């Protein structure tokens, strides 16, 4: 074999290896990060805003989030009933519904659950948007449901002791208890007119969400065990409403491939002519 041929074999072998490595690099990126977020699945037709048992919930992927007793600030609690929440979400481009599910051995009037969102572009501390010392934070929007009242409160906070119901109540909630499990649906329009106090949900964008749960059981002397800041809390997690499917990427890829093909033809023709 001529030396030139050997060189070309080499080029090819190494080149293929380099290309293979590039493909692996691209593919492995997909596994690089644990993917824990709430995904609101897009559906056509109405969102089950007041039906935690609707069949359509099975089309939303469940995500499980660990809860801690709130020991971050006073008043603390060292042990809580709820250890995890399972969360699903659906939206139809106008309305969004979030289903929170957790086990609780007893149904009590003071059983309650809440969602918390960051509002606006500034980060907010997960504990009620309490002030940070070196970073300017934003407010949080809290959607609160209590069994006793059977409805939702749409609230705002920016720091401890600032939690208050909003003037505009945009959230609904409905809880159903059965077989030791609470299923609570919170619902709202994706967008409200009050971007300074309400989270605005734009399809395709990640936003921050966290959870809180109160088991309304009472102790031996009839006092509530979990109340106010004494509750189960989660960290910040991500929430995203799915964007409508977008196939433009395939189109751009096809155009690029055709251009690549054209480039090859032109190049080889030129080379052949030049000889």
């Amino acid at each position, binding site marked *: 074999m001529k030396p030139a041929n050997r060189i070309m074999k080499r080029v090819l072998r190494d080149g293929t290896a380099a290309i293979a490595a*590039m493909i692996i690099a691209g593919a492995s990126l997909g596994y690089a990060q644990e993917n824990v977020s709430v995904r609101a699945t897009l559906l056509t037709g109405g969102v089950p805003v007041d039906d935690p048992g609707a069949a359509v919930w099975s089309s939303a992927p469940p995500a499980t989030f660990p809860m801690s007793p709130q020991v971050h600030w006073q008043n603390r609690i060292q042990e809580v009933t709820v250890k995890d929440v399972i969360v699903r979400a659906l939206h139809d481009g106008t309305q969004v519904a979030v289903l929170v599910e957790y086990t609780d051995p007893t149904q009590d009037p003071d059983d309650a659950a809440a969602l918390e969102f960051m509002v606006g572009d500034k980060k907010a501390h997960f504990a009620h948007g309490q002030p940070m010392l070196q970073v300017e934070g934003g407010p949080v929007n809290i959607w609160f449901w209590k069994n006793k009242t059977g409805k939702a409160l749409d609230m705002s906070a920016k720091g401890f002791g600032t939690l208050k119901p909003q003037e505009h109540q945009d959230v609904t909630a409905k809880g159903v208890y059965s077989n030791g499990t609470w299923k609570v649906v919170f619902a709202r329009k994706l967008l409200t007119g009050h971007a300074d106090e309400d989270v605005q949900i734009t399809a395709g964008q990640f936003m921050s969400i966290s959870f809180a749960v109160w088991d309304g059981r009472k102790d031996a002397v009839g006092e509530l065990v979990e109340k106010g800041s004494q509750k189960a809390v989660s960290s910040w997690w991500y929430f995203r409403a799915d964007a409508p499917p977008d196939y433009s990427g395939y189109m751009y890829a096809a155009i690029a491939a055709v251009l690549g093909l054209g480039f090859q033809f032109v190049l080889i023709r030129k080379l052949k002519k030049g000889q």
Partner: protein
Amino acid sequence: MGALGKPIILMVAMYAFLKFVLPNIPGSAPLPSSLIFLYLLLTAGGIFMFETVSGESKDAFWNPIQRFLTGENIGGLQALRYGVFILFPLLVGWQTYGSTAVSDLPPTESRTIHPAPPGEYTGLSNPVPKTPDNIMQGKGFYAAYCSPCHGGNFDGKGPAARGFIPAPANFADPTTIAMLQESYLFWRIKKGGVGLPIEGAPWKSAMPRWEVELPDEWIWKIILGEYDGAHQSPRTWE
């Protein structure tokens, strides 16, 4: 192999560096594949320019490539030549798809675990003498205030730890308090998660701001108890 071997080795080395070495340098993160691709293209461009400056090396570099592309006298390599012609447009298409597709993953977050403390918290020394009595008191405070998160065994596995991300620090791990000075701990305990600068992602930390509940003297005692209990010693001025 001559003029072609080196460039190929260089490209592979560059790739390995971008993919495997760079992400492990403290403070950096894995590069997106589109960026790796761009850097490799730049490297290839650089090599090409370098190789084509002088006339002779240009020929040694170009001739085999040219012969391969035009398919003259390459015998058994013909099939591979067609393979390359099929693969190249596919690769271009795939790269384009990858760079336009919207990611399904949440934004990547890099959090600096030990950001620089504010100036007034550097170089402070513990005013509380390291006596068995003070250590014992510190451990008592630790059990009351810190163990729910950081654990009775100083391992970060307290009963309240499970829901908090980032997780409460594991003091028995050599990469936490063992590489920090007492002064740094004093800052972290006093100001908590909310005292972190932006690179420490203060909005996510559950570490309480203890200055609102505990006097400084207790904090210094807790530091003594913490090191003793975790079997670590503070980093000192070398």
